[in-house]
């Protein structure tokens, strides 16, 4: 039993923290208020090798392990949760399935520029009538000679308007529901691809969540990712890894809210002493710290299992379920500790609170995580 991080893991965490302090912390409020996509910061993340962290160096990735990835996402999200999810989506939801299921040709063509950060990727699964129930996908891909013609509307696409490459899930055999879904790689520049509404989200406002419309988009068969009608499996395996990323993002948000709370509690004077002296505040801080540690250990455990090549789906679901809840609870407590100041933008914790909520919703709601875990323990 050994919880120690390797030198490399510590170095990656420190690098991410330094970067976040320097580039993200000062800008995150502005990006949030203006709903501004942090394009420049993403470019710098690419230079650090953080956009394809776990991809084999053969495909221009960083060759790092999942533990390092979780540590980095947490630190980046501690600085800016929007940047955290942009990074998580590119790594977990785009690079990972391309490396896992792609042909060498696809890796050469699509994975390399995504892993090196020359291009930005995104993941198109959710539709207006298909959220948790991915089997209800209405987007279709129909064969036409050697090509496929894709039609449909995807929503809640992170990085939407700023993405160059999409992994798109479409029904290739609608009668078979989940067994009739296939995954495809589609470029933004392809004819028939357009960006629809950009959502006005409550939080992670620096990231861009858009509708992506596919209208008679023609792609060659070489863009099919994995086997025909096996796309649901691609999506599910991809989301397992994604949950580690979102759990880490949730932790980063919680950690930021927690650190701000300590700082505030030590400086804010009431009844002639810092409010940190009062048990009412101290006990909240103790609970926040304990919950964050509990969630962090679950997240690292899931990443560690993934690195060891063991089944980590239950562990990732537990990590995501717990870390997202902890994030919301800690951010809520942080506002309470700040009192009225917690309710104004200047003190940041209201942003953390808004940012935290999405972690309970995307890449599998908490309810979906409970289904995964509940089925796991009762099987």
């Amino acid at each position: 039993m050994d919880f120690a991080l390797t030198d490399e893991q510590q170095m990656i965490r420190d690098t991410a923290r330094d970067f976040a302090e320097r580039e993200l912390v000062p800008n995150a409020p502005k990006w949030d208020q203006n709903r501004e996509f942090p394009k420049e910061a993403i470019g710098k993340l690419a230079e650090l090798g953080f956009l394809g962290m776990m991809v084999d160096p053969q495909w221009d990735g960083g060759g790092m392990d999942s533990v390092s990835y979780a540590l980095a996402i947490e630190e980046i999200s501690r600085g800016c949760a929007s940047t955290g999810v942009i990074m998580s989506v590119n790594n977990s939801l785009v690079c990972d399935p391309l490396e896992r299921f792609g042909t060498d040709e696809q890796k050469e063509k699509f994975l390399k520029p995504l892993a090196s950060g020359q291009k930005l990727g995104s993941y198109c699964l959710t539709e207006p009538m298909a959220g948790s129930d991915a089997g209800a996908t209405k987007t279709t891909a129909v064969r036409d000679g050697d090509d496929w013609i894709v039609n449909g509307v995807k929503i809640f696409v992170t990085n939407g308007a700023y993405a160059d490459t999409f992994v798109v899930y479409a029904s290739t055999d609608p009668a078979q529901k989940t067994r009739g879904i296939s995954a495809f790689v589609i470029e933004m520049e392809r004819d028939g691809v357009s960006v629809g509404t950009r959502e006005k989200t409550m939080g992670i406002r620096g990231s861009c969540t858009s509708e992506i419309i596919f209208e008679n988009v023609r792609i060659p068969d070489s863009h099919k990712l994995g086997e025909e009608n096996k796309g649901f499996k691609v999506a599910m395996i991809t989301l397992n890894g994604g949950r580690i990323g979102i759990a880490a993002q949730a932790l980063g948000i919680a950690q930021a809210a927690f650190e701000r709370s300590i700082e505030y509690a030590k400086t804010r004077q009431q009844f002639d002493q810092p409010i940190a002296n009062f048990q009412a505040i101290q006990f909240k801080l103790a609970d926040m710290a304990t919950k964050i540690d509990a969630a962090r250990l679950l997240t690292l455990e899931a990443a560690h299992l993934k690195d060891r090549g063991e089944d980590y789906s239950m562990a990732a679901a537990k990590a995501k379920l717990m870390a997202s809840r902890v994030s919301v609870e800690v951010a809520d407590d942080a506002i309470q500790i700040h009192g009225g100041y917690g309710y104004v933008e200047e003190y940041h914790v209201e942003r953390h609170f808004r940012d935290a909520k999405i972690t309970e919703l995307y890449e599998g709601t908490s309810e979906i995580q409970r289904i995964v875990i509940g089925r796991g323990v009762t099987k």
Partner: protein
Amino acid sequence: MNLTFNDEERMVIELARDFAENELAPIAESIDQEKRVPIEALRKMQELGLLGLMIPEEYGGAGVRTSCYAQVIEELARVCAAVAIVLSVHNSVGAYPILRFGSEEQKQKYMPKLAGDWIGAFCLSEAASGSDASALELKAKRDGDDYVLDGSKLWVTNGSIANLYLVMAKTADVPDKPHRGISAFLVEKDTPGLIVGKLEDKMGLRGSDTAEIQFDGCRVPASALVSEEGVGFKIAMQALDNGRIGVGSQAVGIARGALEEAIKYAKERVAFGRPIAEHQAVQFKLADMETEISAARNLVRRAAWLKDSDQPHGKEAAMAKLYASEMAHRVVHQAVQIHGGAGYIKEYPVERYYRDQRITEIYEGTSEMQRIVIGRAVIAE
């Protein structure tokens, strides 16, 4: 990072699991109802080397790492929380302080015995001194080459079965810094003046004894003093850091036992035409229980690992104990709820788990004390 046990540790854990299944499962219910310490099971544990688990091999113990020890406690508590606390107290607050602070002579004298057929106990709490440990009043007065102990201790686990008591006593009045006047003494059972008083009639953990221990002109040689005068409070606090890992493991074990019972029941019990395990209302409870158990176990293991690698772990042990005990509260509560009326009767073990769990939030530092420890630490960081 490597969150696995080595082969030797796996063998010890398996031994504990088998012992729990074969020897404790059949008696767990009866010792609870009869309020009986299962001394025969404890003797078997001594023979198997399970009781002196953390005592180094040079003294005849198994010398396992804390992380392995924690898992053994979990395995025992999963079946019988009462026996798990005997083990935890014996190792964490009985043997460990002697190892950490005792003289070579004290170690040579007592360690082989504690690895053999002796049982240890820890005497800190008093009628007017619980969480506020430095307010203790039991006095140890120097008299020539001896100390004479006078006073009374409460809530002593293993009180009536122990052979050796680690007793915190006041050797000096230090105004404003009362903890600096506290010293630790090793007192053997047969010492004249050591009297086992009232045995408490508890809600849970009824298979473990909790006694009042009186010291009435109890004379011990100066060689019974552990470390120096005035170091007792530090010894007690470090013992409790260690004990918190044990109690955290115990709480994880109780919760896991309750979850397993709940899963079994939910798969058998049919309502509205299908097993209740298939209803999301029940399945989601099980999912939350499973998640929180895993989280608590990781916190316990992290604290154990820090201790094993000689790193500070006061805050982390407090987190493990706080989270695990409160987690166990929620989990056993839901386990009873899943059982419905059946959970309220003694035929189903969750009724016992429910009662057993409750003490984990109280002893070896209440949840409130853990929050003080953690709160102070995070503010100071």
